[in-house]
């Protein structure tokens, strides 16, 4: 296979994991986070540093990278998820900035602005593709469980959700930790795919790119998010857009969607697997 196509497939898959990682948080629970790329950064850096500086094996780096994201999510989520939704969004934006600042400051460990290099190349094409597919499946199962339903209820009406026994804060925490760990996993894959990291890879533009993809596909549709990620990552590559032009294209698309099709490309529609049908017919009986 052509190298260019191979790298396109792999970056698209990693993006896909990123976008799918914010689906439960932003799409379903209605918490707009503009700093989830910070978790990707943490996952990438923790695993990368462990591999480069301590020579740990890949699987251990992966595990610790993802776990450290979960830990950070607990620390950050505990105070911020108690705040109003728009304050949470703001704090998530600041979190992204803060993480970049810390990465730049502690250059002796992270490589600072010059970057961290010599990470072994462990993310192979099959691993990345399988990861993307599995992540989508996990999130789909999340959506179809009681957790997905609670998320949607919280998004629709927090006060009513509380009146029916849902511990809103605890649920938001669970979702936040879950999604942050997936973002961290995307980060680990990314680190071991690029073999090189620098803090600018994880700025707020990447976080907002994820939100934009999600919004474009339809905030309530996982299928829509997957499709829009693929379209919006591959299209600019084929058209060979400069990065600013690409962002202009994204933003114009979002404005069109918001103005004329506020539910996104697919709204609430999902690609259904036949298993669901039995469930549906049983409902009628």
């Amino acid at each position, binding site marked *: 296979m052509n190298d260019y196509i191979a790298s396109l497939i792999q970056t698209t898959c990693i993006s896909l994991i990123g976008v799918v990682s914010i689906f439960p948080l932003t799409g379903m629970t209605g918490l707009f986070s503009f700093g989830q790329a910070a978790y990707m950064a943490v996952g990438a850096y923790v695993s990368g540093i462990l591999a480069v500086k301590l020579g740990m094996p890949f699987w251990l780096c992966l595990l610790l990278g993802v776990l450290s994201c979960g830990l950070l999510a607990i620390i950050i989520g505990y105070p911020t998820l108690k705040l109003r939704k728009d304050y949470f969004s703001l704090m998530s934006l600041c979190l992204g900035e803060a993480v970049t600042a810390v990465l730049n400051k502690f250059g002796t460990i992270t490589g600072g602005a010059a970057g961290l290099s010599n990470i072994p190349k462990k993310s192979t094409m099959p691993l990345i593709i399988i990861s993307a597919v599995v992540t989508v499946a996990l999130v789909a199962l999340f959506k179809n469980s*009681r957790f997905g339903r609670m998320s949607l209820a919280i998004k629709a009406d927090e006060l009513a959700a509380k009146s029916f026994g849902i511990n809103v804060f605890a649920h938001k925490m669970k979702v936040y930790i*879950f999604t942050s760990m997936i973002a961290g996993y995307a980060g680990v894959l990314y680190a071991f795919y690029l073999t090189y990291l620098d803090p600018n890879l994880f700025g707020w533009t990447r976080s907002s790119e994820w939100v934009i993809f999600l919004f474009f596909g339809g905030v309530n549709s996982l299928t829509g998010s997957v499709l829009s990620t693929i379209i919006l990552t591959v299209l600019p590559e084929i058209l060979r857009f400069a990065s600013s032009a690409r962002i202009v294209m994204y933003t114009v698309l979002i404005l069109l969607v918001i103005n004329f099709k506020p539910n996104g490309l697919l709204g609430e529609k999902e690609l259904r697997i036949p298993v669901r049908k039995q469930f549906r017919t049983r*409902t009628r009986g």
Partner: protein
Amino acid sequence: MALLNVENISKKFGGVCAVDGFFMEVEKGEVVGIIGPNGAGKTTIFNLISKVYETECGRIWLDGTDISSYTQEQAARSGIGRTFQNIRLFNSLNVLDNVKVSCDYKPRYSLIEAILSLPRTIKGKRETHEEAMACLRAVGLEKYALEKPGNLPYGMQRRLEIARALALKPKVLMLDEPAAGLNPEECAELVRFLKDITQKFDIALVIIEHHMDVVMNLCHKIYVLEFGKTIAVGTPEKIQNDPKVLAAYLGEEED
């Protein structure tokens, strides 16, 4: 001790005393009505009992447990079910899922079990499904399980709210104006329906209502409020002849 025991609760908004020293006792199987002019503090009482507002003073006992310091979700889990005056259904969820939400706090399966679809998840989903369908059947909405609530007529939306509250398996069900917007026949039907579910689900019912025929035909005991104060308590017959109540309702009585 009564099933629900409300002792001396009050709520102030700024300088205005919305509820001033309210007492209430509700026995199992009893239907209690709260009436009063608009702004008398009826909905505020519901919000205090269901813990939307924190209890600043007074105590609330449910089935012998002091729930005064509970959070909203703890109150719901301990058996306070309610509906809202301005219907608050989850519009992005379908009718069945709206009811299922009430079962969702139960830890039938964990997040990890859910995303890996382990056996407990499948069993848990089935249990939730059956409980929710039973509640929908009880209110006669099983045919509309997969509709969006926004597509249902107003009366059915109110019934769906009741079904959702019933799915909590409440000990006390509080309905905020269940007959709003219904015509006389529908009101009579509602009275039958409410008597029926009170027996079938073995609960106590507290209703806020402006339709006097609904209140008088349904309730065993009525509390009358004016400006946050309780001005009369008693059986429907007693309330109908109370001079204070007549004064408060002057011109509004023959509604």
